[in-house]
């Protein structure tokens, strides 16, 4: 199971269905980023730097899975944090700060996809995944496992490209980033029911694509 970012203290484990995640969270009263945001707004640049370091991993991961290219993900990640710096005053505290960051990242991904050629993004993604750089600590260390792990990641990334961006985004936010439905709904400005149905459709498309990959 991949490492999920925790969003504050005082969580509650909720027993759900077979796919219920052990780290299922509900929204908290306290946003762990608020103190850094206040200091940043008061003029402390180091607090903004700390916010970047706190969120860069999740932002880059989401952008890579959306754009399929390390170079594009890096450019989009820089654009995300520059826009965060520019628009930080628009954060009103009516959602988690991480939701605000994800929203800006989602916009960066969707805006970039309009100008990326589909084939170029797909090929670049494959090339990058095959020449994989440092991965998460959970990746296996022995050569055979490492090789098969990279192949598996490449296989899933290829299959993800079969999922339309409008379905892929909520899927990644839910299953990869671990965001709950209400937060995704708020982030994407969609009803929860629409979020759920898009995730379900995305999973089915991904399943079909992975089945095709294994043949």
């Amino acid at each position, binding site marked *: *199971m*991949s490492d999920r970012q925790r969003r504050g203290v005082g969580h509650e484990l909720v*027993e*759900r*269905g077979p*796919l219920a995640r052990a780290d299922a969270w509900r929204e908290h009263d306290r946003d762990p980023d608020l103190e850094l945001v206040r200091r940043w*707004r008061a*003029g402390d*640049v180091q607090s*903004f*730097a700390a916010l970047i370091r706190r969120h*860069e*991993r999740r932002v*880059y*991961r989401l952008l*890579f899975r959306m754009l399929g290219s*390390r170079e594009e993900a*890096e450019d989009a990640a*820089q*654009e995300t944090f*520059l*826009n*965060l*710096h*520019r*628009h930080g005053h*628009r954060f009103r505290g009516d959602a988690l700060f991480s939701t605000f960051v994800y929203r*800006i990242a989602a*916009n960066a991904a*969707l*805006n970039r996809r*309009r*100008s*990326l*050629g*589909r*084939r170029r993004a797909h090929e670049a993604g494959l090339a990058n995944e095959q020449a994989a*750089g*440092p*991965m*998460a600590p959970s*990746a296996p260390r022995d050569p055979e496992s490492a090789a098969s792990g990279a192949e598996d*990641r490449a296989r*899933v990334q290829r299959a993800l*490209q*079969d999922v339309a961006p*409008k379905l892929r*985004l909520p899927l990644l936010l839910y*299953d*990869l980033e671990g965001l709950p439905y209400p937060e995704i709904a708020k*982030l*994407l*400005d969609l009803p929860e029911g629409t979020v*759920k*149905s898009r*995730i*379900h459709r995305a*999973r089915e498309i991904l*399943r079909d*694509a992975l089945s095709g990959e294994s043949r």
Partner: protein
Amino acid sequence: MTHGEVRADLGDYLEGDLPLERRALVDAHLDGCAECAQRMRSLRSTVDTLRALDGPEPPAGLSAAVLARIEAGEGRPGALASLLGRIPWELRGRLAAPALAFAAAAVLLVWLYRPAAPPELAWVERPPLPSRQSVQEAIAREESFGASADPGTPAEDAPAGPRVASADLDAALRDPASLLRALAPLSPAERQERLAALARAGDARVPALADALAAQDAPDAKSLAETLLRLYDARSTGERP
């Protein structure tokens, strides 16, 4: 239950979101239907595979690169926004009026010391571009990325709009007065389209252009600058303008 009904419920079933009675019906169907049970198992496996995916790690210098660009002047908030951002929320209502007056005075000073207008540049006609969409509408307009479908050519799927808008942005920054002259004869809707195209270039040049437009000697320079900035801000944050 029919196969179709069970398949429609599989997503909620796997998440534990079905009412107990409905869940019992799905369970009963799965017990007796190998095909649906296999579908459920493959769906669960797909999600497990996806959730086991992690990384890649961001490049080591990402935060340093962002901070360097901020230091160089990119990504800076607007003067008024920056000022408001430093004020406790409860005081903003009382301080909004003097803050606006300060910003207006700053714009006036820039206008008084504006540079002379260089020769006019020619604007080439572009095909109309869609207006700015929120994240929700942008998602709704996204087409399938299916590998089995015709992927199209890079030219088809990388429309000239954004690259052309980027070149227009550079030209407008060099000569903002020329942009105003080009916009003057257009209808309000056409002006909106042109400004939306520039906002879609989507980088720190846009607020710099808005500042330059606001400093121009034209009756509607400030309102056009505000429109451009509003379109850019909304595009960046996914909020409706």
